[in-house]
C-alpha cells in the first residue's frame, strides 16, 4: 500500500479530514507526523535562512520526521481558494522550498490550487494528483467528492458545536477526545491562523492555559463562514489574503460581540499578519469595547514571557468585569 505523509503543520489544521479521506478513498495509507517537538523545530530551522517564519521552520521539521516513513509527502501549493484573494508566498513556494532544503525527502505530491484559473484547471489539478494512485478518473471524482463531504462535515462540526480543529479531528477519526472545561470566568477569543493556535509548541499551550484559569476559549473556527466574511467586509472591504477571515474577520467579530477579551496570535516576520493584525488592533483602539492583546511569537519566545503577559491580560479583564458589576449595583 502506498504511504502518503502529511506533516502536522500549516494547512493540516484546515484540511486534514479532506486530505485523509481523499487519499484513503484512492487506496493509500495516510501517515501523519507526531505533534511538534523542540527537536523538530531545531532540525527544521537548521535547514533554512534565519528570517524564514516559525511555522515554516516547524513544517520542515515535520517533513524531516516523515522522511523514510512514507513513499510520498503531500505538500499542496494553495494559491487561492477565494476570488482574487491570494495566499502568502511561502505557501506557494512550499513544495519547491522543501525540495531545495530537504533533498532527501520522498517525492513530493505537489498540487496547485487556484480558484481564479477556473473550475476546469482545478479539476485537472485534482486529477493530476489522483493519477499517482489510479488511472480511473471516476475513482478520483468519487474520492474528491467524499473528501469534500468530509471537509463540509468538519467545518460543520466546528461551527455548530464549538469544537477546535484538534477536537473535531479527534471526533471524526474516533480517537479519545479531550474534555472541554465548563467553568467560566471570562470568555477569551483567540484569533490567528490555526497552525499558530493549535500547535501547542508554538503557542505554549495557550488554549490549555486559558482553560486552566477557568476561561471559555473561542476560536475563529467556531464562527460560520458567513459571520466571518461579513465581519471582514465591515472591517477592510474585499479580502486580499486567502486566510484573512481567520484574523481580520474573527477579530472584527469578537471585538464587537461575544468576548470579554481578544488575543491575537501572530508569528514574527509573518507578512500577511503584520498588516492584518494591525487592522484588528486599530479597530480595537477605535471601538474601545473589548480588551485586545497581540502576542508575537518566534522560536526565542519563552514560556515565562507568555505566561506573564497572559496573567496581566486576564487580571485586567477580571478587574474590568468587577468594576462593571459594581457600577450596575
Amino acid at each position, binding site marked *: 500500500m502506498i504511504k502518503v505523509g502529511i506533516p502536522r503543520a500549516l494547512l493540516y489544521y484546515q484540511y486534514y479530514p479532506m486530505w485523509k479521506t481523499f487519499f484513503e478513498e484512492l487506496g493509500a495509507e495516510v501517515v501523519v507526523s507526531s505533534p511538534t517537538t523542540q527537536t523538530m523545530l531545531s532540525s527544521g530551522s537548521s535547514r*533554512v*535562512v534565519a*528570517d*524564514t*517564519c516559525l511555522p515554516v521552520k516547524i513544517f520542515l521539521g515535520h517533513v524531516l520526521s516523515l522522511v523514510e516513513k512514507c513513499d510520498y509527502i503531500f505538500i499542496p*501549493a494553495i*494559491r487561492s481558494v477565494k476570488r*482574487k484573494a*491570494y*495566499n*502568502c*508566498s*511561502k505557501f*506557494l*513556494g512550499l*513544495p*519547491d*522550498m522543501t*525540495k*531545495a*532544503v530537504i*533533498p532527501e525527502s520522498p517525492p513530493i505530491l*505537489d498540487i*496547485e490550487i487556484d480558484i481564479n484559473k477556473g473550475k476546469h484547471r482545478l479539476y485537472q489539478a485534482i486529477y493530476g494528483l489522483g493519477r499517482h494512485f489510479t488511472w480511473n478518473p471516476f475513482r478520483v471524482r468519487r474520492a474528491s467528492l467524499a473528501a469534500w463531504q468530509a471537509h463540509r462535515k468538519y467545518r460543520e462540526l466546528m461551527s455548530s458545536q464549538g469544537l477546535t480543529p484538534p477536537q473535531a479531528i479527534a471526533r471524526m477519526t474516533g480517537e479519545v477526545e479531550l474534555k472541554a472545561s465548563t467553568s467560566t470566568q471570562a470568555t477569551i477569543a483567540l484569533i490567528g491562523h490555526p497552525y499558530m493556535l493549535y500547535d501547542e509548541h508554538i503557542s505554549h499551550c495557550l488554549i490549555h492555559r486559558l482553560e486552566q484559569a477557568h476561561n471559555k476559549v473561542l476560536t475563529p473556527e467556531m464562527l460560520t463562514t458567513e459571520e466571518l466574511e461579513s465581519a471582514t467586509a465591515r472591517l*477592510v*472591504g474585499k479580502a*486580499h*489574503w486567502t486566510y484573512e477571515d481567520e484574523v481580520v474577520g474573527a477579530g472584527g467579530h469578537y471585538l464587537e460581540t461575544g468576548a470579554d477579551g481578544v488575543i491575537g496570535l*501572530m508569528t*514574527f*516576520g*509573518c*507578512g*500577511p*499578519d*503584520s*498588516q492584518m*493584525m*494591525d*487592522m484588528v488592533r*486599530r479597530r480595537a483602539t477605535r471601538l474601545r469595547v473589548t480588551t485586545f492583546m497581540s502576542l*508575537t511569537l518566534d522560536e526565542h519566545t519563552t514560556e515565562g514571557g507568555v505566561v506573564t503577559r497572559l496573567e496581566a491580560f486576564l487580571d485586567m479583564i477580571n478587574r474590568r468585569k468587577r468594576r462593571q458589576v459594581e457600577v450596575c449595583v
Partner: protein
Amino acid sequence: MRVGTSHLGNISIMIKAWAQRLGGSLILPPVNNQRTLSLGVKYSPEGLCLPFKLTLGNLIEACELGADTLIITGGDGICRLGYYAKTQEQILRELGYNFEIIQLSLSGQKLFGLLKLMKRLSNNASWFKIISALRFGIVKQFAIDKIERVVQKVRAVEQIKGTANRLYAKAIAAIDNADNYNTLKRVQRDYIDQLNHVAKDTQAKPPIVGIIGEFYVTLEPFANQNIESELGKLGVEVRRRTFISTWTKFSFFFNSLGWDEKSKIHKAALPYLKRDVGGDGWETVGEKVLHAKEYDGLVHLAPFTCMPEIVAQNIMPSTKENIPVLPILCDEQMNRTGMLTRLEAFVDLLKSRRRAHNNNQHRGS
C-alpha cells in the same frame, strides 16, 4: 487638486514631466532622507517591510506640504504591496490628514488605468495632450536609464572615484530641466560623451556583479545605502535587469501584447521553482540560474521579512548553476559600515576566485 505621491528611484522625474505637460499641481515630497524613514518607521506596524515604511514617510511628507489627493500603488498581487493602500490610508487618516485616495493598480489594466487617472487629474485634458505628455515622461526616463547604464560601467574603472556620480547627478538635473525632445536628445548625447571621456584605468578588468532581488530596494538608492556606487568604488562593474524604463515599456505596453521579457528568466527558474510566488521571487531564482556563467557574483537585495525573497533565498543555494551570492537585507536598522565590510569581503572573494580560475586555465594550456 494637489496630488501627492511617493518616490521610487528616479521615477519623480517622469511624474514631474507629466504634471508639467498637463498642468496639474503636483506635490513631490522631499527625496528619501532620514526624516522620511523616521516618520515611516514611527507610524508603521513594526513587522512591515522597508518599502512600506519609506512610501508611508513620503506620503506623510506630501500631506504636510498640503497634498489633498494621494496616489498609492496597489493591486491583486500576492505580496504585501496589494494591501499597502488599505493600511496606509488608515494610518494617514488616524494622523488627521484629510485627503482623497487613488489606488493605481499594478495588476490588471495598467496602461488604461494610468491614462484614465491622468485624464481625471488633468481636469479632462484632451487625449492627444495626455498621450504626448505620457510619451515625453517615458522618453525622459529612458534617457536617465541609458545614462545610468553607462555610469555603472564607468564607476568601476574611473581614475578619480566619484567623477561618474557627479556627472550622473548633473545629467539628471539637466534631463529634469529639458522641456523638449531636442534638448533631451542633446543632453543625453552630451553626458554619455562626457562619461566616455572620463579618465579611466584601461588595464583594469573589473569583476562583474549582478544586482538581483526585490524591485523597490534595488531601485531606491536610499533603501540600499547606495550599494551600486559603493560597489563602483570597490572597482566592480554593476549590472541590473530592473530599470524603471524597461519596466514601464514591458508592463505598460508589451506585456499586454503577449511579449513577456521575463519568460526567459521564468524558464530558467522552472527546475527549481515551478510557480510565481509573488513579488520578484521567481525572477530572483531565474536570474541566478541565467547569470551564473556571465557574472562573477550576485548581490541579492531584499527588504527584511519580504516573503517572496525569503522563498528565493532558501531555494537559491540548491541550484546546479553555481555563483557566489551575497544576500543583503534592507531595513531601518541597516548600517552602512556593516554593509561596506561585507561588500569588501565579497569583492575580495570574487577577485581571488578569478585569480584561481585564471591560474587553472594557465596550467591547463
